[in-house]
């Protein structure tokens, strides 16, 4: 069972006490069936009741809500309390949010990856708000001697029309706190939402704009030492010997310790450690192939033709379809490795004490950190606390716990509280990249331009399955074969915002564009026809919602005035990923012979939009990320060592390079399906297809900037 740790409880109780705490409600994110329960302040303070979230209503009307998921910039610390406040009919100005620093052994949805936090919690948050409202209404009904059903609520106030009575929530908070919560609570009709769907500003804006210590890197502890670690300089190396005498003699250095293949320089300040690391003398030996980018290209070609492929999906008779085809279209697409580059580099604090372990820092997977710490130190997991800080971006990188594990090792070895800090160079060269992948697409058209056969082979380096075999166009083509080959490498990879689809979507949507052109059809009509087919006579199982996909395509076409703008080259793209549907139109204009990406029009179906302001930014940010990495992102290797190590060699998109992004949400009343990732995948395709219209050159490899079409253009 999950619980809030002591610090969170303390933070919560402080605010609740100041508000003259009356009603306390404990509820859980991790158990859909358990109803919220009325608890008392003493129980929360003592930690004798186990919930991962609480809300309190004070006699001064202040409502305090704990948001338990780690905040990495996806806005849930604002969006979650909004959901509670909606069902509670609370006045948002009176709502305060506390970040829960969770500390539990098995918290089901503590991870913020996969756009899953919001859909996961939707129902539970609503129930918590509705329960609190029910209790207040019943407390008022008892005191006023009127039926509860006649009491209405709005803006943190209770009203009884017939008697003219009214009161603020604070007045009945204490009485409500003495009632028992119902186990079966009725939720609002979604059409009557007032707060949900509005633009609400991020609750942390002020703290961010004034430089408050919110992030992992900002965590300092009295007597804490710093550690900068030298990891093997090439993927495939292992540590042979270390001469640390010179480093140890540098000012401020306390110790140099070695664990696994790492050498940690431990000292009194970040700068001193960084300088001392430069004078370490380390010898490595080869433990695996030291691969270069040229090797990868050769491996791709070889495995594409000769690799033993795992079949991911098969429908109909592909061989026959291609044999009987009037036209066959074939193209290959390739993407490089990418570092995540969150602006806050990896860092973590650990204190291995005599009686247990304290961990503090920016991680999306505290459980992994805890389990690893237990293994290293021998302490049972109950003796290990993890406090989560705000995180300066994640993009998938903070789903790994390697940096937390390092901190545990170092603290254990030097017997002191230690903060491990990665420099930008460490962060960029430290691995767990977006895997490099090459795709080969083949399509068979009959004489009417109908797609009768489709083949996709993905070859990836440490990619797992680089296809998403059930995504579009699967289901819309009778004869289809999707398979994949994986090459194992010493270069480490991991989830990167919208794993696999971050590249697959662009490749597939660009290829579909090629096929539409070969078929002599409009790209939008071509996609719609395929979807019609998936609806009327599906080939095999269809695992996406065809109608929702059609709806975003139509909305994007309408909002972009598709095909009707003079002097504007438009490219279309649509993708279903991470439970949401997004269509995008890229618009390129040629100015003085130079094609420039001006606009992206996005149509988004992520179900009910909770916070309009936050959601709008999620989409814009996702598009900017997708466009930026497609245009510029490139990580290459020489003998196992990355060629790029900082933002001078690795190019991130800047303000002068962004298109305008015009966002339209589909309003369909479906439960929210998350927005941290789905806007990114279609972006590359919209851009590539628009550039094609302008230049007649396909962009088949990322980064686009290195493609022939961009020669002489920067």
């Amino acid at each position, binding site marked *: 069972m999950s619980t809030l740790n002591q610090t969170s409880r303390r933070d919560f109780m402080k605010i609740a006490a100041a508000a003259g705490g009356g009603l306390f409600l404990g509820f859980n994110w991790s158990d859909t069936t358990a109803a919220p329960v009325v608890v008392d302040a003493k129980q929360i303070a003592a930690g004798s009741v186990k919930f991962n979230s609480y809300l309190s209503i004070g006699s001064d009307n202040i409502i305090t809500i704990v948001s338990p998921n780690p905040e990495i910039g996806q*806005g849930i610390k604002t969006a979650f309390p909004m959901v509670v406040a909606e069902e509670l009919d609370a006045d948002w100005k009176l709502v305060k949010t506390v970040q829960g620093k969770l500390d539990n052994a098995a918290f089901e949805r503590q991870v913020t990856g996969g756009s899953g936090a919001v859909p996961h919690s939707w129902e539970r948050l609503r129930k918590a708000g509705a329960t609190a409202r029910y209790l207040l209404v019943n407390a008022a009904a008892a005191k006023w001697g009127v039926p509860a059903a006649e009491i209405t609520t709005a803006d943190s106030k209770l009203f009884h029309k017939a008697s003219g009575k009214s009161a603020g929530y604070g007045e009945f908070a204490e009485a409500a706190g003495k009632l028992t919560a119902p186990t079966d609570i009725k939720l609002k009709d979604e059409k009557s939402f007032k707060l949900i769907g509005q633009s609400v*500003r991020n609750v*942390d804006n002020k703290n961010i704009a004034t430089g408050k210590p919110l*992030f992992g890197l900002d965590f300092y502890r009295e007597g804490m030492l710093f550690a900068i670690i030298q990891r093997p300089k090439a993927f495939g190396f292992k540590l042979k010997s270390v001469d640390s005498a010179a480093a140890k003699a540098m000012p401020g250095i306390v110790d140099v310790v070695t664990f696994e293949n790492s050498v940690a320089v431990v000292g009194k*300040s970040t*700068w001193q450690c960084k300088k001392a690391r430069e004078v370490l003398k380390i010898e490595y030996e080869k433990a695996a192939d030291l691969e270069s980018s040229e090797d990868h290209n050769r491996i791709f070609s070889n495995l594409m033709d000769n690799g033993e492929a795992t079949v991911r999906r098969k429908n109909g008779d592909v061989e026959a379809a291609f044999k009987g085809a009037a036209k066959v279209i074939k193209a290959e697409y390739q993407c490089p490795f990418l570092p995540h580059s969150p*602006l806050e580099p990896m860092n973590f604090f650990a204190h291995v004490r005599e009686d247990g372990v304290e961990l503090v820092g920016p991680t999306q997977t505290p459980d992994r950190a805890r389990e690893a710490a237990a293994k290293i130190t021998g302490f049972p997991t109950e003796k290990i606390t993890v406090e989560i800080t705000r995180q300066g971006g*994640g993009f998938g990188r903070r789903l790994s716990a390697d940096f937390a594990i390092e901190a545990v090792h170092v603290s254990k070895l030097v017997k002191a509280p230690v903060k491990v800090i990665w420099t930008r160079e460490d962060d960029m060269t430290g691995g767990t990249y977006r895997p490099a992948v090459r795709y080969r697409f083949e399509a068979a058209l009959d004489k009417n331009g109908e797609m009768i056969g489709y083949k996709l082979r993905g070859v990836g380096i440490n990619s797992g399955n680089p296809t998403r075999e059930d995504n579009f166009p699967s289901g819309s083509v009778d004869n289809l074969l999707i398979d994949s080959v994986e090459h194992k490498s010493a270069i480490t990879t991991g989830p990167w915002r919208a794993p696999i689809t971050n590249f697959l979507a662009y490749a597939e949507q660009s290829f579909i564009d090629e096929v539409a052109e070969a078929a002599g059809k409009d790209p939008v009509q071509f996609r719609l026809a395929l979807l019609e087919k998936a609806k009327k006579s599906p080939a095999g199982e269809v695992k996406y919602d065809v109608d929702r996909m059609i709806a975003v395509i139509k909305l994007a076409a309408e909002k972009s005035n598709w095909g009707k703008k003079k002097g504007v080259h438009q490219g279309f793209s649509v993708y279903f990923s991470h439970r949401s549907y997004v269509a995008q139109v890229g618009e390129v204009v040629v100015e003085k012979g130079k094609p420039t990406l001006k606009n992206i029009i996005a149509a988004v179906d992520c179900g009910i939009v909770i916070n309009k302001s936050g959601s709008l930014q999620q989409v814009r940010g996702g598009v900017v990320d997708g466009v930026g990495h497609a245009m510029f992102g490139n990580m290459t290797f020489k003998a196992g060592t990355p060629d790029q190590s900082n933002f001078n060699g690795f190019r991130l998109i800047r*303000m*002068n390079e962004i298109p305008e992004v015009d966002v339209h949400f589909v309003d369909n009343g479906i439960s929210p399906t998350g927005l941290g990732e789905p806007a990114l995948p279609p972006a590359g395709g919209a851009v590539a297809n628009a550039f094609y219209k302008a230049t007649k050159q396909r962009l088949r490899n990322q980064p686009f900037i290195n493609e022939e079409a961009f020669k002489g253009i920067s």
Partner: protein
Amino acid sequence: MALFKLSINNRAYSADVEGDTPLLWVLRDNLGLVGTKYGCGIAQCGACTVHLDGKAVRSCVLPVSAVGKAKVTTIEGLSEKGDHPVQKAWDEVDVAQCGYCQAGQIMTAAAFLKEKPKPTEEEIVGAMSGNLCRCGTYHRIREAVKVAASKTN
């Protein structure tokens, strides 16, 4: 090691560090002023931007020995109550996503607007393109600078 006397946010500080230590790390590790962020250490991202006698500088490449008598302003000292027009505009436009780059963005914008109170959009983009935002909040940063400019005078 040497003792450096610094004037930061109109207060006197001193730090006993090596002279080549970047101001950024003195602020963070020695003086507890952690609002100034580390992003790259090589003057590429702008997360570490502070004001030196009112001008925006990258504190990650500024050795503490080069600060001398210059007055340093960090995000913590930009305004007393967090109500500098740029800070207010950042809230009004709801700029921050993860928030990590924003102290640097705000410091860059504040110094820029002091020099150019009525900038054109092009000038804003020119001034702000040195600051990276990995979350891609550029549209709103641009908008917030406009809002701040419209409210300053």
